[in-house]
């Protein structure tokens, strides 16, 4: 065969076959080993009532690590910001109050702020390697309260946790180019990439290192405090612990008040029928995935703030809630459907306040279905 003429190089970064083999071998080892070694050298302190801090919500690598750190006997409470506790501090969440009442069981807050069923599905499939565990899965009917919440509106929306969405399923409100969709898929499947996101989220304020070096402080005129900093000095190998005194959450915060005091009024909800809902379909698939992995699931439905529903949309809500119950009964999935809480215990349509969570935990403990589902005391 004729030898092709040589191509001109203007640098010496020209690897031959042997060099490539060495380079690829080094890269494969680095890519494989770095996230694994990192888990050993990075301090990750998990206290009682630990929940993934708000600013680390998109660190799915850390979420996976958090789940791996739980004991196989722990009961995981999985869900969106209702489980996580949007208006409350860690010791005001559902898992905390369940834990308080449970004598031998330990309930773990496995909720993430900003999730919704379509994102929970992605999280469970890719970052929650749960097998043979007892899991409480929260079903928040808020995500079926309108075509917009169900991501069915045919216009682009700013979507939280978009990287967890099914990338090649039609979701009308999710608009992303092929590159974004493929990079989300790759991040899910290559641990090194989710570890890179962990670095960015945990140490560089959700930014890439170049963006972090250029970040301004928000003042006018802006200052650039990181310009001369060594990025490596940011990596202190310690995952930030949630601050005990969160001004945005808890009884002391101005947000922690009944919805009736926020100026909100009963609202008409354009409920999406169960059979047409994308979020419900995702919820059902999540149940399938978790059950297929041998997990024992209990679904907690709501309780949605029915006081906020205008009378004209109440009937559709009841139909929807009954539809969920029927589905769970049909597939013999244990569930609890606690009754609606008093109006003053809700902060909005779906999030209880601290006392609301306390009452909800009490209701669950009083529910025979819940008690029956719990592991037998040894």
């Amino acid at each position, binding site marked *: *065969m*004729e*030898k*092709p*003429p040589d*191509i*001109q*190089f*203007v*640098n*010496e*970064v*020209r*690897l*031959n*076959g*042997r*060099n*490539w083999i*060495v*380079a690829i071998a*080094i*890269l494969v080892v*680095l*890519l494989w080993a770095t996230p694994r070694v990192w888990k050993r050298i990075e301090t990750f302190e998990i206290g009682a009532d630990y929940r993934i801090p708000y600013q680390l919500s998109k660190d799915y690598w850390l979420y996976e690590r958090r789940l791996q750190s739980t004991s196989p006997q722990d009961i995981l409470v999985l869900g969106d910001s209702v489980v996580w506790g949007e208006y409350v501090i860690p010791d005001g969440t559902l898992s905390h109050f369940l834990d308080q009442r449970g004598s031998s069981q330990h309930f773990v807050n496995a909720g993430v702020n900003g999730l919704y069923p379509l994102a929970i599905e992605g999280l469970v499939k890719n970052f929650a390697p749960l097998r043979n565990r007892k899991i409480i899965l929260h079903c928040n009917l808020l995500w079926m309260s309108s075509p917009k919440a169900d991501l069915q509106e045919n216009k682009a929306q700013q979507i939280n946790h978009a990287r967890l969405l099914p990338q090649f399923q039609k979701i009308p409100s999710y608009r992303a180019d*092929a*590159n974004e969709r*493929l*990079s989300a898929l*790759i991040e899910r499947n290559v641990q*090194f*990439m989710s570890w*890179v996101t962990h*670095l960015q989220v945990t140490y560089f304020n959700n930014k*890439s*290192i*170049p*963006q972090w*070096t*250029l970040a301004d402080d928000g003042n006018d*005129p802006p*200052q*650039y405090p*990181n*310009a*001369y*900093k*060594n*990025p490596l000095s940011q990596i202190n190998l310690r995952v930030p612990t949630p601050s005990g005194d969160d001004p945005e959450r808890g009884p002391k915060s101005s947000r922690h008040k009944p919805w009736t005091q926020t100026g909100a009024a009963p609202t008409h909800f354009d409920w999406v029928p169960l059979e047409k809902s994308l979020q419900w379909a995702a919820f059902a698939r999540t149940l399938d995935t978790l059950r297929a992995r041998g997990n024992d699931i209990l679904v907690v439905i709501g309780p949605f703030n029915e006081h906020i529903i205008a009378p004209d949309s109440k009937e559709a809500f009841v139909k929807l809630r009954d539809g969920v119950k029927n589905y769970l009964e049909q597939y013999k999935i244990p569930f609890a459907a606690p009754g609606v809480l008093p109006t003053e215990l809700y902060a909005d349509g779906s999030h209880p306040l601290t006392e609301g969570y306390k009452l909800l935990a009490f209701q669950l403990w009083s529910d025979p279905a819940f008690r029956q589902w719990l592991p037998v005391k040894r």
Partner: protein
Amino acid sequence: MLFHTWPFLVFALIVFPVFFALRNTRLWIPWLGLASYFFYGWWNPYYLTLVFYSTILDYTLVALMDHCPLNRAQQNSKDRVLSTAAVVSIALTIASLVTAFAGPVTLRPTLILFSVLCALMAPGALLRSRRIWLLVSIVNNLALLLFFKYAGFGVENLNALFKWAHWTYQFPDPGVLMPFNFPYLLPVGISFFTFQSLSYTIDFYFGKCERERNFLRFATFVCFFPQLMAGPIERAKHLLPQFKTFPPIRIQNFTDGGSLFVVGLFKKLALANYLSLYVERVYENPSTQSASALAMATFAFAWQIFFDFSGYTDMARGLAQIMGFRLILNFNNPYLATGLGDFWGRWHISLSSWFRDYVYIPLGGNRRGELLTYRNLFITFLISGIWHGANWTFAIWGILHAIGVMITRELERSAFYRERVPKIAKQLGVFIFVCFTWIFFRAATLSDALMICGRIAKGVWTDPRAPALMLLLVLAVWLYQFFYESRAREFLKAAPIRVAIAVSMVIYITICSSGAGSFIYFQF
């Protein structure tokens, strides 16, 4: 589709294996053409018609030229192809005129222009004139460029002139000429594929290359995907022969191509995109920036554009090399140039040689005395500046380079400059001058550019807050280039050094890349 995005990886994973699998068939060229059209259509499928139109017209024109031999005595007066061409062009002229006035209004401007082109072709066939065919090709390619790239700028300036002269008439937006109300966008890579196609007709006219009879091969030459969007602008005599037979493929194709691609990827993702963040921050609102920030951003832009464009061509050359094709070198460490002439021998080599061969030399080059040489240099650089974009800033940029080339040409005549001035001083001088010209290239308007120059000259020098990491990366590359062109090159050749650099680049890209921004030269 951008080389540094995931969809391109999927594209490559399909295109390359099929291409290699087709090596023993005649289908590899159609496959390459199809892949290239898909690659271009990914950006905007409507504009594929433009590439196809340009291709088919130049292919036809060269075929017709082939029927008009250079020597008129050899012409066959009863050539049936030319007779048919005459009839077809007259018929097409009439048909397009009739359709223009009887058909849809939105098609009228396009059809009228097409009828003019057909009307130009008729005398070519009747007079059996190669020159007319060449003229049609030049007019057509330049008309495409002028319409899509410069019409908006021209109309804007004419309207401003009319307003200044208190004339009430205003030209409409050129977008109204678009057929079927298609959006009036600058087609990506138009300056590159029109120049490549044009070079074929010009070279054939002057007998410098052979006619390509296979249409698919010619179409693939025009739209060959690695270099379609931003070059290097290949010549028919270099690239077309490579498409005659399936290229010999060896391991070295993959190792060399992979090396080029990784270097290009690093330049783009790790360096150009990082620098662009700082440059945009400063140049977005230059009037509020300090002199030092403006100077630093100009320095950063000099490197941004180098990394962006040379990164693209490295990737393009790497991809072509993997398939067994060799694209010409486009950048040769230009910031080590010791003179402006040297700089243009190292920067965007395929474009500067294009202008040298098709503008500077036809104008007379340096054969008609000093004064005319400088006139020719001036015209060539002015056109080169305008080629980059429809803005006065690009024209000034071209003129400044013309002046720079003239000055260094004169300086190099003196023995003192040639022999006594240290090389490093010349290199720094050229670099500083080139940085100064980049102000005009990067600024949004001419007044912004002048204001930036004024602020740098007179302004307050404060802390520019340019990230230390960014500067460190640039200095590391600059130092590498100095080493590469010095005796220290031997040290860089050591296998552990090469492997360490390649591995570090990949790791850096994976951990620190700053998004998938587009390439600067796509807009030209």
